[in-house]
């Protein structure tokens, strides 16, 4: 057993660190520090820098545009980007649909969709969840019926409703699971379709969440005409793509590097905020205890992830163990936001977004971090719900790992 980085890995880390320092967009950094809402271009600006460098898709095979990094290098990459507070690259194209396309797509589909996914020219949305099908994904109802168009070509006519579609207000394309055979068993008869969101019949409606943000949407599909060549893999075999994608989604979901940065931030905050006795909050034995426990739990998660990673490097794909990473990772993310809100004390209460008085109160009061503490706490409740709720993840471990 050896847990040290090799000299090559250390050199790689220095290279990454230097690249971020020199190339991270300054305007984006300012917006992050001010806690401003991100526009579409803000999300894309860092993506484009990385695409140019060839680093935007660390996990992709080289022949499709990945950098050819080892799993250790990928780990270093995620550590360094989190350490530098880089905005995350949106997962929908890079982590989700991209791997599905290069794994299951035809040569034409790869050529058509992979380059613009890498460059950021296609903003992908994820069309999995439906109002009646959240964690029970297979019960989805959106249907796609095949027909021959006036031009003699084959199409699907798609009708249904998707929900919790993150940032779909910016979306160019949406990848959807649709029911192509209503008579098949529940997990069969599903197909994986790519739909151009500019197609007639696609409507995006905002859902405002607890923290007051417009982050998720409903997407309505009404008689949307989709060419058959936009289907990935075989008809009625979409569940295979879905399972593959979910395993990929879960593997990044632990968020260890970002949580490390989050705990570092709590330490910074608590060293300037004052506790009840007038000394720095971090000196308060109770608060300190909670930060310590969090750090220890994060270390346990980190080394569990490293073991998974080592397994992957040895050729084992991400299996049901990744559910463990999702459960503990999201719980830790939530506890971090709890402690930030706790540190804010009275100043966790003021709210400065989306109210009629907003204009007069543009400049927040209280410590800089505090006005985002409560909205973030509320927002991060989603992490134990999305990507298959933590209850579902426990069911997966029970069934697949423990054989119960």
């Amino acid at each position, binding site marked *: 057993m050896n847990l040290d980085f090799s000299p090559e890995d250390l050199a790689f880390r220095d290279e990454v660190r230097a690249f971020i320092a020199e190339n991270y967009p300054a305007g984006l950094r300012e917006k992050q520090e001010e806690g401003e809402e991100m526009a579409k271009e803000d999300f894309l600006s860092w993506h484009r820098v990385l695409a140019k460098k060839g680093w935007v898709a660390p996990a992709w095979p080289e022949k499709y545009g990945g950098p050819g990094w080892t799993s250790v290098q990928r780990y270093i990459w995620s550590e360094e980007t989190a350490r530098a507070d880089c905005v995350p690259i949106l997962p929908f194209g890079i982590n989700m649909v991209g791997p599905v396309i290069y794994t299951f797509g035809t040569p034409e589909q790869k050529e058509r969709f992979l380059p613009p996914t890498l460059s950021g020219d296609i903003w992908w949305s994820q069309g999995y*969840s439906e109002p*009646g099908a*959240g*964690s*029970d994904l297979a*019960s989805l109802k959106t249907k796609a019926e095949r027909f021959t168009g006036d031009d003699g070509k084959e199409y699907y006519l798609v009708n249904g409703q998707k*929900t*919790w579609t993150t940032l779909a207000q910016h979306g160019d394309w949406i990848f959807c699971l649709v029911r192509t055979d209503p008579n098949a068993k529940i997990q069969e008869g599903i197909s994986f379709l790519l739909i151009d969101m500019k197609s007639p019949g696609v409507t995006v409606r905002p*859902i*405002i*969440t*607890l923290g*007051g943000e417009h982050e*998720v949407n409903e997407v309505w599909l009404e008689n949307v005409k989709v060419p058959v060549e936009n289907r990935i893999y075989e008809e009625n075999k979409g569940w295979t793509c879905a399972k593959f994608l979910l395993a990929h989604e879960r593997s990044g979901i632990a968020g260890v590097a970002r949580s490390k940065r989050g705990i570092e931030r709590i330490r910074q905050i608590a060293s300037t*905020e*004052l*506790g*009840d*006795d*007038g000394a720095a*909050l971090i000196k*308060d034995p*109770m*608060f300190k205890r909670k930060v310590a426990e969090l750090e220890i739990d994060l270390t346990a998660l980190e080394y569990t992830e490293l073991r998974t990673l080592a397994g992957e490097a040895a050729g084992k794909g991400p299996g049901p163990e990744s559910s463990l990473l999702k459960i503990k990772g999201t719980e830790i993310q*939530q506890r971090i936001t*709890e402690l930030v*809100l*706790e540190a804010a*004390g*009275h*100043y*966790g*209460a*003021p*709210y*400065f977004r989306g*109210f*009629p*008085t907003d204009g007069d*109160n543009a400049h927040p*009061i*209280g410590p800089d971090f505090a006005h985002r503490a*409560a*909205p973030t*706490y*509320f927002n991060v*409740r*989603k992490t*134990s*719900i*999305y990507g298959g*709720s*933590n*209850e579902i993840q*426990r069911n997966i471990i029970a069934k697949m790992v423990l054989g119960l």
Partner: protein
Amino acid sequence: MDFNFTEEQSMVRDTVASFLADKYDFETRRKIVSSDSGWRADYWKAFAEELGILGASFSEELGGLGGGAVDNMIIMEEFGKALVIEPYLGTVVIGGGFMKHSGYAGAASVIEGVVGGTTTIAFAYAEPQARYTWRDLKTTAKKDGGGWVLNGHKAVVVGAPFATHLIVTARTGGAQRDAGGVGVFLVDKSLPGIVTRDYPTVDGNRASEVYFENVSVPADALIAEDGLALVDKVIDEATAAVGAEAVGVLRKLHEGTLDYAKQRKQFGTAIANFQVLQHRMVDMFIEVEQSVSMTYMATIKLEEDAAERAKAVSAMKVRIGRACKFVGQNAIQIHGGMGMTDELAIGHYFKRASLIEGLFGSVDHHLKRYESLSFDAAA
């Protein structure tokens, strides 16, 4: 042993509950919190005149209906169930509390205004540096002729935008964190030199940063010149009342979750049929019931001596704080994505519960206070 309410108290509960059922449904509440004023002054008037509840907790000599802390508890619980914004806590519980316990000469006339609905009060006690240590005061009150001059900055004064008066703590003597020299003043909010910056809070309430810039107040503004014991007593009463509000909020979080789990179907069955969720909802129920018990206990013990009272209130706030977190977080979790939306009421109850956790002291603050009262004092 008797946990029953008197006939009068039951009547107060029914009156408040039926008014809120008629006029304070969730959609109405949503309109109130997003309106320019942020509250319903006409409802406040109705509380005073139609319902008469603003006098419920005052003695008859003071123009009230002869009740006390239990009446406040009943009313706050109902207000919690409807997420009522109007400033009962600041005006009646806190403002009224100072009037009852201080021997203040102007008490009768202030209470008359409170009971009649014309006087509304917000409590300006917190300061940016002080966290939950009320005696940590940078705000000063200096004698000036017959009156006083106030200078300082008060943080997150909830309900200040609707208030006609502020109750302000300020140093009349001693150093920043001394127990002695904590003055308490009743200040007309329209006095020159009072600058406020109003804003909404995350739970839909309104609050202000209040700045005193050489504010001259008359001699009769002084409620107490050395009043930390009085402040502690009133804050304990307010904390008990907030516990009661939390009980209302928690009941709704729990009920709402049960209803949702019974109708929401996944994997071909109502999610209420999953044992893992059943046990979770049982644990939520236990948290709610224990919160009710602790709120009764603390409210009854408000009459005891300072140490007993403080211990009871801190014990309650520890349980309530934990219940708010456990019941609130699980209500959202069991609602799944729907719990994350602004549209459903459940999230708004969660937000109120989350702020109650830190109101008048966090779980840690009250655990420490309980420990020092129950271990250190005896040693």
